[in-house]
């Protein structure tokens, strides 16, 4: 199969698949996620190269993948809707010390994840020290403390 078709098909498939899986699978590398990414990488390599292990084919596939990435970056900048679709949007999951349970459940995030982020970034001990917690587009949780007054 043509390297361009292989590269485009695999790239778009993985893009859609990881969007479906949810943000946390990208940012939070647990042992499970690590194993998954390792295996997916191996399976992808086979699919991209097929039985053609020539240097030419490898270089062509790399060029195709980088071109798609570049194209998406340009298009995302131009079309806001595409940017939203591919990258998503941030989501507030804690508001004035109160965990927003429905939002957290739908996002696949629990209170422990938020408290972990709070401990790591600010050394917070409790939820009521958090003004806002935002689940960012890349899957990380950012913590906004109450202003010191």
């Amino acid at each position, binding site marked *: *199969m043509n390297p361009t078709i292989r590269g485009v098909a695999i790239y778009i498939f993985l893009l859609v698949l990881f969007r*479906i899986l*949810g943000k946390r699978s990208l940012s939070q590398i647990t042992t499970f996620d690590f194993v998954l990414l390792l295996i997916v990488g191996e399976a992808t390599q086979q699919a991209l190269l*097929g*039985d053609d292990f020539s240097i030419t084919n490898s270089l062509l596939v790399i060029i195709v993948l980088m071109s798609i990435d570049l194209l998406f970056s340009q298009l995302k900048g131009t079309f806001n809707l595409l940017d*939203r679709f591919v990258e*998503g*949007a*941030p*989501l*507030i999951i804690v*508001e004035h010390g109160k965990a*927003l*349970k*429905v*939002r957290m459940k*739908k996002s696949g995030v629990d209170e422990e994840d938020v408290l972990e982020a709070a401990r790591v970034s600010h050394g917070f001990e409790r939820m009521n020290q958090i003004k*806002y917690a*935002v689940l960012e587009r890349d899957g990380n949780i950012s913590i*906004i403390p109450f202003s010191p007054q």
Partner: protein
Amino acid sequence: MGSKNKIERFKHSLELDENLALHLKGWKIQKISWLFILGMVVLTALGLFGQGPLSKQHVAQNNIAFEYERFSRYSKETVVRLQLKDRKGAARIAIPFSYIEGFRLESVVPEADQTDMLEEGFVYTFTNSTEKEKDMIIHFYLYPRKAGRIQGTWTVNQSDFKLSHFIYP
């Protein structure tokens, strides 16, 4: 119960475009996609992409039976199993060129006593000089050359058998 699953809406002081409508749409699509992925896993286990009950095909007539995989994947070996029962004399198997164009015939086990390339296609002849081997099983090991539908009518001792495959890319 309805209010427990209702998404929390409130005003906030952050300069941040949450786009809650996008999230709600996304979660709905996510749920449907998960069901689709689960369905695909089940269908794969059942053989929709080869190697399973959905893929196994059995064609038989006049004491001749074919067993083969209806679905397969590109560059994955597939086997056509031919069983001849109570055969008298030589077994003559003709494979049309249209079929061979779609597959690379890797090997035939047992090897044919005679192989010819005639107008009807590749013809494999298995003689039965001793008249001892009444039942015979022949395996044709094939590799798909292309993706898509590959079909052809094999002729075994004047009986026609239509074999049809779908090869996933």
